[in-house]
């Protein structure tokens, strides 16, 4: 009560004043917009659509399944499916979204669209300097503005992007292995059918014996490879 608290307070502010000229800890101001703070990796603002490769129309992963549109709480996503199919990144014909609009004045950055997308097609961006003076049209982003390459995704969220890429590669490998197994099984049934057809008319050819031995060979590595991939899951 003798007033020493006031003196201690005055000393503290004097330290702050003097220290603000020498140490960064005592002057934490960042002079925006000349200096900016680097965003944290988990920062998120509004969604964007990923495309693989260099053509944004062809490489877009979105197949207009409309799950994100249904799950979005404020209903800020507007999708229109296309009537035709376009070849995608790997050349397979896919349905694509003819219109994919997100109203960022409504979007609340809840990330539910990202969580439910089965194709890893929509992810969260971290760009926030989106102010515009066009009140209605300027805040409705269409699919051209939303499309960004996979390299951009790697730049802003490296760990997430690496995980997504690994998952996609794995699924792709699984699909390929399954396709190979299917192909092998098909070839086996075709070979069996051919063997039956060959053994019925009883026209033994030395060449047919080898096809059967060759036909027995692929199923074994296929049988071996499927337990391997199943064990890898």
């Amino acid at each position, binding site marked *: 009560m003798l007033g020493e608290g006031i003196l201690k307070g005055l000393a503290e502010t*004097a330290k702050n004043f003097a220290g603000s000229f020498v140490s960064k800890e005592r002057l*934490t101001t960042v002079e925006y917009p000349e200096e900016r703070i680097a965003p944290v990796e988990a920062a998120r603002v509004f969604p964007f659509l990923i495309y693989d490769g260099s053509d944004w129309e062809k490489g877009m992963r979105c197949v207009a399944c409309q799950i994100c549109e249904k799950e979005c709480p404020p209903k800020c996503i507007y999708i229109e499916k296309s009537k035709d199919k376009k070849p995608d990144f790997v050349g397979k014909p896919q349905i694509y979204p003819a219109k994919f609009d997100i109203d960022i004045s409504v979007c609340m950055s809840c990330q539910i669209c990202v969580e439910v997308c089965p194709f890893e097609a929509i992810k969260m961006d971290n760009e926030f300097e989106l102010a515009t003076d066009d009140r209605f049209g300027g805040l409705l982003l269409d699919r051209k503005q939303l499309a960004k390459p996979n390299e951009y995704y790697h730049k802003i969220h490296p760990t997430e992007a690496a995980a997504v890429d690994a998952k996609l590669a794995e699924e792709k490998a699984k699909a390929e292995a399954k396709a190979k197994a299917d192909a092998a099984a098909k070839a086996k049934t075709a070979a069996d059918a051919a063997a039956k057809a060959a053994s019925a008319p009883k026209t033994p050819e030395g060449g047919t014996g080898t096809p059967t031995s060759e036909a027995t060979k692929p199923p074994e590595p296929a049988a071996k490879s499927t337990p391997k991939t199943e064990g890898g899951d």
Partner: protein
Amino acid sequence: MVGTLDQIFVLLKHWIVGLLPPVLQPVVGVLLSVVAIIATFPALFALTTVIERKGLGRIQNRIGPNRTGPLGILQPVADGIKSLTKEDIVPLNADAAVHFLAPLVLVVAVFLEFAVLPMGRNMVLVDMDAGLLFFFAIGASTELSIFMAGWSSRNKYSLLGAMRAVAQMISYEVPLLISSVAVVMITGSLSLVKIVDAQNQYTWGLPHWYIFTPWGCAAFVMYAVAATAETNRSPFDLPEGESELVAGYFTEYSGFKFALFFLGEYLGMFAISGLGTALFLGGWSAPFSFLQFVPSWIWFFGKVMLSICVMIWVRGTLPRMRQDQLMNFAWKFVIPFTLLNLVNVVVWRFMGEGWARWIVCSAIVVVAYVAMARIGMRSKKIAPRSYRYAE
């Protein structure tokens, strides 16, 4: 050691006045001094606004204004342009005449206060016998303008702010006057020029400033507290508390009238700091006898700016006091302490020269301070907090 640089303004004025016919000489002489004061102190006010904002910013871990001019030096120009070009809104129900006159009364009263401050050797506008009394009389008139401002706005909250401000200013005028009376008792004159002259002596190189005496130190601390309360500065700025009453008694003012209030408040700060410097810090006298070659007006303005910087420092440190805490502090601590200090001055005067009176007077000050602080703490029943939880 009265050098030319020291007296440069006086010599300049004499030269200009000498160029004119004798009929006009007195009027022009006074006019020149008045113009000098009107030019200097608003310029200092502009500088102080920048210093305050940047200083407060640095205390609060941020940079102050830095976009207008290098280091934000041109910020007062921007503020001036803003307040001159803003629309002057007068509420429909407001009392137009009183609303218009309130800032004028404040600014006129505050400018009048500068007339008695000795700003350098031979540099006082009017050397009055009762200069100190003039200063306090004019200071009392500023309260009237605050009341006029609060009442004419026809706004309950402005009126509340104005009443609080007037109550605070009246309560703290008493310790302001009594601590100054301590100085007057020792000097034997109410004239500020004589008070500064009495402090302009040196013993072993150290000056005879009144702050270096035990009663002077106590009186200076009480004067500083009372001066901060008189000018409505933090921690006593409840009347203009920005978070409580928008802007208190000048809520309904905009544009140039607001700028006039702002100017009046800061000029009041300068005037009271100037008076404190003249009374306790030796006015224009140098701190050490070998430093007397530096011009006297530099010392005066340096000490005033130092006081302003301390006020800014205190503003950045202390939280605002509540109205009842303010009033309790004034009537129950500061006034008894200043009255005891008067007794202290009498003891000092009648004990005669020597080291004995230093010990006795310091003992009186310390014992009184500690005793009053302890008594104040005891009556508040400060105990460890007890909690009662909801069932």
